[in-house]
């Protein structure tokens, strides 16, 4: 995983720690979605309920993951509050989906590709996207799509499930070059209904593209509940249509997410093609800051899911293991708060765009049409200033 290169070097390099022992087929066989199986390792109380599949993660790794989840939550909460103050535009809150984001991202290598939808903040940060860049996107700037060099991540994708074909294409390119990278692509339960979902999985299966299709099944597509989206018992079983493995996991369980993604990555990396992971989670907040979930779901349901909070259970696990306590928690929250503040300050410091900027990058070189339009705008702006 060579996180050393992305973070500050405090981590062990656990690149190979559980590679050798993986028997990929057995995980996907053991958790056949048609038999109602679902991978679940860490329960709500913080107990390990499935020792067989518990990944071999060292304490530092788990602590780092937990801190990453805290950062995602704090940065997200900050974004929502800045939006309420009118300092950011409409944005999609991540509350409740931190385990799925961080657990999946940490199962990959730095050189792997990440193809986001728009609700995987924890994954982007893990991948190396600066908070400033995230806030820039929320602030309505195209610079929110500009990442540090060699950060193999695509921008947020607005049209649902279209990104899955980009993931297939990147996977295809990797296979073409004989590389050993894999691609992870995120999408929602709603995203499974689009034709592009189907085409991306079919293409990837046919060409054996190394792609992990990671579905954040957060039970809703805006107001549409999962049961009205599709009649299949699980989303995982849709894999059968493409002759590839599919697995349903507890998406609020950091260890299950990590384990399943890691084995899917191994599967893909070893040339066996794509895998579909359905991570069952819950969108604890609104769809976007413009949305009001009160219109379409019960408070009781929301309350029920609060107990399944993905952070809480890791914290309980760490506390039980003597690795965490109140003061470490405060320190982590404070640290995350500082980072979020700094990121948002940096984003707000970006000067407004000028007329040149909005024409730039339409093409490698401005067409005569655009040149004329730009001239016209600038002439007008000059006239306006002078009058």
């Amino acid at each position, binding site marked *: 995983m060579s996180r050393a290169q992305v973070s500050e070097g405090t981590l062990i390099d656990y690149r190979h720690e559980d590679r050798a022992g993986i028997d990929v087929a057995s995980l996907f066989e053991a958790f056949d979605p048609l038999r109602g199986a679902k991978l679940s390792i860490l329960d709500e109380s913080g107990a390990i309920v499935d020792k067989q599949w518990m990944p071999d993660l060292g304490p530092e790794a788990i602590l780092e993951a937990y801190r990453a989840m805290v950062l995602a939550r704090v940065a997200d909460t900050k974004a929502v509050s800045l939006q309420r103050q009118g300092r950011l535009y*409409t944005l999609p809150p991540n509350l409740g989906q931190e385990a799925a984001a961080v657990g999946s991202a940490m199962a990959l290598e730095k050189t792997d590709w990440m193809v986001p939808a728009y609700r995987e903040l924890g994954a982007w940060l893990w991948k190396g996207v600066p908070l400033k860049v995230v806030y820039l996107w929320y602030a309505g700037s195209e610079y929110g799509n500009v990442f540090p060099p060699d950060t193999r991540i695509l921008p947020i994708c607005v049209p*649902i499930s279209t990104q899955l074909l980009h993931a297939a294409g990147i996977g295809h390119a990797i296979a073409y070059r004989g590389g050993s990278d894999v691609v992870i692509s995120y999408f929602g339960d709603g995203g499974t209904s689009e034709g592009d979902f189907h085409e991306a999985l079919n293409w990837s299966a046919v060409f054996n593209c190394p792609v992990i299709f990671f579905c954040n099944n957060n039970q809703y597509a805006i107001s549409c509940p999962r049961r009205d989206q599709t009649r299949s018992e699980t989303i995982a079983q849709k894999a059968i249509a493409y002759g590839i493995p599919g697995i349903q996991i507890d998406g609020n369980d950091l260890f299950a997410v990590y384990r399943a993604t890691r084995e899917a990555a191994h599967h893909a990396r070893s040339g066996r093609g794509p895998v579909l992971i359905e991570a069952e989670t819950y969108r604890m907040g609104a769809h976007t800051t413009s949305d009001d979930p009160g219109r379409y779901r019960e408070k009781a349901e929301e309350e029920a899911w609060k107990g399944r909070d993905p952070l809480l259970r890791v914290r309980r696990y760490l506390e039980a293991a003597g690795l965490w306590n109140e003061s470490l928690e405060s320190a982590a929250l404070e640290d995350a708060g500082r980072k979020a503040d700094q990121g948002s300050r940096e984003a707000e410091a970006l000067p407004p765009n000028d007329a040149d900027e909005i024409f730039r990058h339409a093409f490698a070189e401005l067409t005569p049409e655009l040149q004329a339009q730009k001239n016209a705008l600038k002439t007008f702006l000059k006239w306006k200033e002078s009058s």
Partner: protein
Amino acid sequence: MPVMTMVQAINSALDSKLADDERVLCYGEDLGVEGGVFRVTENLQSKYGRRRVFDTPLAESSVVGTAVGMAIAGLRPVVEIQFDGFVHPAFNQIVSHVSRFRYRTRGRMPMPIVIRFPSGGGVRALELHSDSPEALFGHIPGLKVVMPSTPYDAKGLLISAIEDDDPVIFMEPKRIYRAIKQEVPEGLYRIPIGKARLLSEGGNITVVAYGAIVRIVQQAMIELKKESIAVELIDARSLYPLDTATIVASVKRTGHLLVVHEAPESYGAAAEIIARVTQEAFYYLEAPPARLAGHDTPPPLPKSEDLYFFGPERVAYEVKRVLAARP
């Protein structure tokens, strides 16, 4: 008479037609329980039930493709696409079927379908939530393309669209969804599709606009009036069919033409209007007919929106440029 915003007027049109005609169904993403992301369909599901007003899976090709089947089976589906930018997954069904079925079957299988969606920019929205694809639809034979600029027109045009035996792309200028309040009759009334509206007669120049831009031109006209420039403002209302006659008659009076829209300039609707006017009023034109339109780039994200979407000042400036043109 009740006073309504455009959102309310559209809701009222749907309500009236749902009440009036059992064959009318309304569906789309988040349109039922939630009442639409802009609340355009609020309360319709509770009033007409889940059979007639319903949420669909997240699949635009389905939303339009099933409407084709429903139309063949004798229904009159009024479907919603959540935003302008999400009509594209349904493009194949629109181009290959919605627009062609009547022609294909020599009139046996007409397509009385309305495809509604909020359109255009200026609301600080995410990417693909600010597009203006009207010219694309105008170029597809077999479609009617409509965009209202007031609540009153919105309701009357939508009722006409639902009653039309041909498919209508009904574009709703989201920027003015709640910006204008106007007296709007309850119950059914119609505004014919294909008729422009002359908003002000007598002037030095004809300005053609539609949708949210009409209001911006009206704002510009206040300033222009101070400089004694009078504008004949025409709200095209329907892009296809286009009311060439009304526009040409006006240009024959004014000798000058400016067409304004927010969609990208190249291959946009202004080109079509100018081509028709130069064909039919060539000898009346005193200056080159001009256009003010969006740039040939995607609409930028909110931070740069004001540089892309022009306001009344720019309109006034372009009007004066047309009037100042000399050989």
